[in-house]
């Protein structure tokens, strides 16, 4: 029996090789687009051309940001005549690479890429370029050396957000010596890396009196951030801490809870973050969080579609870069409707 199965297995392997040899490469001829059923079918409101696009995202309705990113993205895409097939790799670089291969095989008019891990997307970009499929990037930009392989970027200036958060911090710290703890995003994530660098560079430059005593990843998660902050408070000593920075509002809520759990009033400290979310905005209003930086998920989603359409309709020779404005939100403007939280 085992011999029979061995033969069958060998036959399977050989047939795969023969099949591959018969196909001999040129998949673009056999894999014309249109077979993939789009998630949202669209007809442009001005009666213009329609386009098939793939959006390779690392999150969707499983995350608060993705939940409020998707509806404006899909609505704008429908309005502009973009038939979108959306994937969600859940921040798994290998899964996104596999989805990219599927997208390239489907031969769409354009691919929108939100990199799960910025350092791993070059092969995907090269494959798309080789197939003549333009790629636009949303939310998290590519590494500088890979940017020439994409036609556009729209989204937050993640480094600039770190800078803006640090600027709020420096202004509040004045010339005083302040020791802080730092909770960063998911390790390896390009947004987390950029925000950390933006904050640290600005602090070193504008307020060297602020010292980062300890730093840990909070993985964009409130509970993990609270644990990380509690450990750091214990490790460096509460008496040495004058403030905290967290890379987003979800995590800063965990940091604030960690301070409260140790009997420290967060209002006595300088705390800043990024996001201005439903979680962070009330903390600014209450005075527990001194400042955050507004990130609009609807702006992000909508402009991903706008920029993709612009690339398809205008074929620009230069890479388009459209940064989301990094608006600081403090107690002075937290109630302003223009910075009303979205996620």
């Amino acid at each position, binding site marked *: 029996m085992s011999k029979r199965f061995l033969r069958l297995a060998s036959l399977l392997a050989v047939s795969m090789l023969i099949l*591959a040899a018969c196909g001999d490469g040129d998949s673009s001829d*056999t894999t014309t687009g249109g*077979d993939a059923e789009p998630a949202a079918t669209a007809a442009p409101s001005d009666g213009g051309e329609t386009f098939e696009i793939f959006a390779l995202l690392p999150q969707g*309705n499983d995350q608060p940001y993705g939940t409020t990113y998707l509806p404006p993205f899909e609505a704008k895409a429908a309005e502009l005549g973009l038939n979108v097939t959306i994937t*969600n790799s859940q921040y798994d670089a290998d899964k996104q690479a*596999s989805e990219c291969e*599927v997208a390239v095989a*489907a031969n769409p008019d354009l691919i929108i890429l939100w990199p799960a891990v910025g*350092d*791993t997307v070059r092969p995907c970009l090269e494959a798309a370029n080789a197939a003549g499929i333009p790629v636009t990037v949303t939310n998290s930009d590519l590494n500088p050396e890979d940017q020439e392989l994409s036609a556009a970027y729209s989204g937050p200036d993640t480094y600039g957000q770190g800078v803006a958060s640090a600027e709020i911090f420096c202004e509040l710290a004045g010339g005083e010596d302040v020791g802080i703890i730092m909770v960063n995003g998911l390790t390896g994530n390009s947004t987390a890396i950029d925000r950390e660098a933006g904050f640290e560079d600005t602090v070193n430059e504008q307020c060297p009196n602020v010292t980062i005593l300890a730093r840990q990843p909070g993985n964009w998660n409130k509970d993990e951030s609270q644990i990380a902050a509690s450990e750091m408070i214990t490790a460096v000593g509460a008496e040495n801490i004058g403030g905290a920075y967290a890379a987003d509002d979800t995590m800063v809520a965990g940091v604030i809870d960690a301070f409260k759990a140790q009997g420290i009033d967060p209002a006595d400290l300088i705390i800043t973050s990024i996001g201005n979310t439903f979680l962070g905005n009330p903390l600014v209003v209450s005075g527990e969080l001194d400042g955050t930086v507004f990130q609009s998920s609807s702006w992000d989603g909508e402009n991903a579609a706008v920029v993709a359409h612009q690339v398809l309709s205008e074929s620009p020779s230069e890479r388009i870069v459209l940064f989301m404005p990094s608006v600081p939100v403090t107690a002075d403007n937290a109630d302003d409707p223009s910075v009303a939280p979205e996620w």
Partner: protein
Amino acid sequence: MTEKQGISLGEAQGGPWNRIRRTLARRTEGRALALLIIVVIVTAIMEPIAFTAYEVTLGSIALIGLVALGLTAVILMGELDLAVASTLALAGVVMASIDDLALGIVTALVVGLLIGVVNAFFVVVVGINSFIATLGMLFFLRGAAFVLSGEEPVRLSDIDAGIAFGKPLIGGLTPRMLLFILAFLALQVFVTRVRAGREFYAVGGNRQAAYDAGIPVRRRIFTGFMISGFVAALAGIINTLERTAADPTAGSTVLLASFAAAIIGGVLLTGGRGSVFGTLLGAASLGILQVALTLSGVQVDVQNIVIGSVLFIAVITDPNSLRSVLGSARSFFRGRSRASPT
């Protein structure tokens, strides 16, 4: 020996139908094959591009299947290796951290083997349950990958070599697929033709009987974990080369997908039953399904529901499970009819 007896008995007792029935009952791949046929037919109707772009589908199968193949060697002996995804991540980071590509590959493979040895040491020598031992290794290795990488992805020193590695080598087959085929053939030969491999079934089926029969059980368990570690490291090397960088968070979806492939393929988690071929069929079903669902633009939540359902069907259609469900149902209705006033 048992197999030969079964066949001669069958031939004596019945015609070809009985023989087929007995063969199907004995083999564990039947459900996986039936499932694969259904998946292939549905995909061919709904998303034929999954087959015209066969290289993409084969890549997806290889991505899921490679780690699952190594895992099968451990599961056949009734053990678990939860550390495969972390092994994959650490091996990738080790390889990318070394400038010399060839030396990096060799070192990463050695690391995979050593991880297998350590896992087996805890299970065999210390006597810790493999679930707990490899759960500990899962966290340890993931932490080690973060520390070694400086908590950032590590780019290959030779990115062009990585991109070249991802290109087709023979026809549409990339080195990943060829290595997957080689790994499959090697493991299939090992567990069916080599005595040490065949003894995996005895170790998983009845460990005491295996000891009594003079099988070196400890050595076999060491071998199984080393195979699992080696194959996971190989998958980490391939992923790192193809992505041109090692991601310390890599493999987050690999562990469950690998177990799912093995279970769908009919490998019994308690050991003693299953085959490498079954795992291949399970990985093929999952790989094709994943490509078809991605092409359809089905949301990841719904994809998880579909894959979960497939796994559930694979488990409940196991003859033992069916017998147990039928037995429970029978006693339930018998109990109700006794309790009924009529």
